[in-house]
């Protein structure tokens, strides 16, 4: 026995070392168990909700969602969506996100975090995981799945490298009201009501629906009565910019204006009918000199993954928008074009002369005032009429979610900014005659075109009826890798679209002096 101890001592395994090793093993076990306990303790719903007091509405909206209130009483817990399935990166993602959370809690002002933009698809992809969805929803073709679901899941299976579950099921975990629900289209009753107010055959000058030949769609056109208004804004208006003045009287002939922004559905008919299928992106100069040209296929997904349907079509260039109007005119036999800036502001104001077409002070709605940032931004009633910075979740929306202005036009403010016919000149108003102008068309030439109305990205200050904006051709084609750059699609602009206007009386002098502004040709 003794010799054994002597032998061990020789190797260095004396009682002191042995007890050190023993302590080491005990510490190892403690860390392991403690580590597991630590991981478990930071993965409970309570911990997510209360540890940092950071995202107040996450728990409440989860409780209202289909992942808490279920027919089966099964509750899906926070980490069951916000961490991958076990064995597929669970610990690495927990470490990564945990580190981000600790950093944010320590160094950031939690009240300044843009929670709404974290709801956007782009950001949500960084903290949700398909493996987590599939762990429970393993069968993508469950009994009673709708045809839409079947097509959607087949599409997902073919596009796994581009699509995530949340591309379509973005709000499955957190319920934020009917406005926020994905894949919601106008209900049948809404469509029927609209069909009543927009009949197919107008008797004289009234609102009606113009069918688009070669499709089942119709363009709903609101009859805008002729009249005069004061264009521009008073110097006292908050957030007024110099190009909005001086105010001047404008008289307009009657015209029809599209009730909504041109939707993806409508734009797709144009792409189908005029798109140059035979021409590849690789040789844009090889086209035959056709009288009629059409858009080339875009790079990637022009709808940014937000979906199409009645959402406004975006990323098309000014040139493409004017060509759309040419096409629509050709197939319907009626004169369609972009609105002039005057027509746009007249229609947006709808007989009012305040900052917005409803009573409201921009200083209360804007985020640009530090007081609002501290005390909170007022959103009603602006949010009922417009998709903008405060409520859009950084994307475009279906046409049916907002209230129309007093003349029945929807999303004049917000959703997407809208192309106008005029060249942009900051001094344009100053150059107009002192007396009332009839059907002005803007400057004879320019570099950029007017865009109006603000978008889903805009602050309330930029949603005022008088606010003027303009295209930025070079900036919006920055990422375009082609040479020459595309004349049909912007690579760096996802918040501009347009709506069409139909001229009422082709014999009016205004109609004869058309300017068709188009992209500088390369």
């Amino acid at each position: 026995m003794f010799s054994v101890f002597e032998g061990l001592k020789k190797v260095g395994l004396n009682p002191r070392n042995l007890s050190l090793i023993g302590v080491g093993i005990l510490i190892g076990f403690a860390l392991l168990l403690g580590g597991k306990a630590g991981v478990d303790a930071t993965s409970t719903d309570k911990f997510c909700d209360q540890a940092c007091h950071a995202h107040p509405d996450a728990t409440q909206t989860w409780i209202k969602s289909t992942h808490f209130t279920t027919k089966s009483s099964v509750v899906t817990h926070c980490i069951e969506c916000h961490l991958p399935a076990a064995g597929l990166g669970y610990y690495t993602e927990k470490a990564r996100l945990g580190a981000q959370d600790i950093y944010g809690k320590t160094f950031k002002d939690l009240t300044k975090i843009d929670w709404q933009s974290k709801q956007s698809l782009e950001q949500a992809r960084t903290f949700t995981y398909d493996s987590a969805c599939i762990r429970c929803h393993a069968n993508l073709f469950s009994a009673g799945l709708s045809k839409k679901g079947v097509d959607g899941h087949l599409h997902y299976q073919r596009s796994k490298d581009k699509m995530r579950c949340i591309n379509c099921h973005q709000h499955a975990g957190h319920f934020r009201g009917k406005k926020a629900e994905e894949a919601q289209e106008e209900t049948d009753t809404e469509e029927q009501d609209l069909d009543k107010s927009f009949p197919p055959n107008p008797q004289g000058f009234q609102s009606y629906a113009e069918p688009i030949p070669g499709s089942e769609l119709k363009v709903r056109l609101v009859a805008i009565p002729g009249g005069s208004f004061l264009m521009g804004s008073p110097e006292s208006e908050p957030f007024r910019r110099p190009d909005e003045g001086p105010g001047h009287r404008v008289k307009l002939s009657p015209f029809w204006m599209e009730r909504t922004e041109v939707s993806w559905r409508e734009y797709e008919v144009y792409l189908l009918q005029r798109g140059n299928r035979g021409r590849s992106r690789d040789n844009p100069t090889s086209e035959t000199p056709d009288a009629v040209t059409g858009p080339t296929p875009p790079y990637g997904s022009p709808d940014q993954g937000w979906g199409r349907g009645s959402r406004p079509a975006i990323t098309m260039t000014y040139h493409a928008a004017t060509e759309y109007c040419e096409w629509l005119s050709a197939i319907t036999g009626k004169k369609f074009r972009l609105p002039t800036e005057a027509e746009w502001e007249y229609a947006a104001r709808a007989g009012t002369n305040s900052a917005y077409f409803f009573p409201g002070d921009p200083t209360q709605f804007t985020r640009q005032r530090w007081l609002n940032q501290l005390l909170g931004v007022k959103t009603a009633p602006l949010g009922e009429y417009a998709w903008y910075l405060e409520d859009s979740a950084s994307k475009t929306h279906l046409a049916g979610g907002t209230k129309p202005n007093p003349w029945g036009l929807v999303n004049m403010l917000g959703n997407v900014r809208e192309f106008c016919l005029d060249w942009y000149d900051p001094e344009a108003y100053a150059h107009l005659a002192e007396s009332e102008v009839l059907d002005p068309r803007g400057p004879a030439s320019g570099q950029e075109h007017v865009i109006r109305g603000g978008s889903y990205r805009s602050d309330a200050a930029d949603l005022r009826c008088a606010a003027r904006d303009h295209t930025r051709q070079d900036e919006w084609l920055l990422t375009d890798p082609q040479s020459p750059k595309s004349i049909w699609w912007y690579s760096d602009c996802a918040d501009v679209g347009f709506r069409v206007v139909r001229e009422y009386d082709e014999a009016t002098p205004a109609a004869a002096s058309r300017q068709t502004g188009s992209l500088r040709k390369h």
Partner: protein
Amino acid sequence: MSDEGKLDLNRRTFIGAIAVAGAGAMLASCAKSYPPMTFVDVAPDGPPLKAGLIGCGQRGTGTALNFLKAGPNLKVVALADVLKDHLDSCRDELAKKAQVQVADDRCLIGFDAYKKLLESDVDIVLMATPPHFRPIHFDAAVEAKKHCFIEKPVAVDAPGVRAVLATGQKAASYNLCVVTGTQRRHDRAYQETYNRVSNGAIGKIVGASCRWNSSQLWYAPKKKEWSDMEAMIRDWVNWSWLSGDHIVEQHVHNLDTILWFTGMNPVKAVGVGGRARRVTGDQFDFFSVLFTYPNETRLASMCRQIDGCANEVSEYVVGTEGYTDCKSTIFDSTGKVVWKYQEAGSDPGKTKFNPYDQEHVDFVTAIRKNQPINEAEHVAHATLTAVMGRTAAYTGQEVTWDAMMDSKEHLGPTEYAMGPVPIKAVVPVPGNGADTAKHARS
């Protein structure tokens, strides 16, 4: 030792080594073995399995007879069809050839007869209607948790194909067996040939061709007492909305073989076609389509249904080290036969096991052994390939797989009843004639 001597020694060793290696390689190639295949001659016994047949025409009756021969304890207990005379003939055949009597109350007539059939206690559903109806019947059968035998093709348009892809996955999740009528996949000679090709016998695949050139099938001129719908169904093989046109209805067999041997779906297709002699309906009677697969592999496909022409039904797949006729033979790149299927008691290259029977033997074996086979995906993809070819020939345009898979073009009416059908016999004409006058020379 002198340097030269050393060299000599090295050369000898070198040559010797090469010789040994060469011999080894030769021996290896002669002895190259392929994984052995096992085939089932007859399905195992088990608890009785009852089948219902939807679509009691000639192929339907044949399907039921193939099924009944597959193994012991199999019954056909219900029939559904829209035409009473077809159902009656089928019933008589089953009684005569298989001694099977189907009760009166299990003989169901009408467009909705399939629903009643699915409510009954059948375990298995055999579907052999015109392919237009397949996606609807297949989905209903899977929702009713029945094992399915679905004849090819499985749809006539892209929405139908998508429905079948989804239903096939549903069936997999319910552990149901789905076998389809692409019987070459169950033909022993084809299977042994595929075994060799998939293990490298012809090297890397670089191209393929297939054709189904045969005489015209049949047609049924409209009788006065028939409604539009009845006339079209009695003449279904000549109406695009019912059959998909013959490239889909018949040539899908060959396109499926190419899918099987190459493992790929095409990326795009360009084609021609037309109608030379077909009598009724709105279909073409010849197609020639070039399919381009990934890696620039090309398939030259052709099909024709006209009397008095050179006929051939074949598939060829070409590789870097030889080619195959898919059905029994491997050739080296000079055309010399390297291997041919041999079966005891049968001519070289042939199997005595009828593949139409074999597919049901495999079907029933899979059900009884609880090892489900699911063939929905490959027949759906082969069907879409054929639809792609048809679309390319009808329109004259290049059609991509992605565009075809997403296509919403639906063939046929949306309601089914004996009566008028809002479809006229308009034969497609490719391209457009808008500029024809420009080409005139004076």
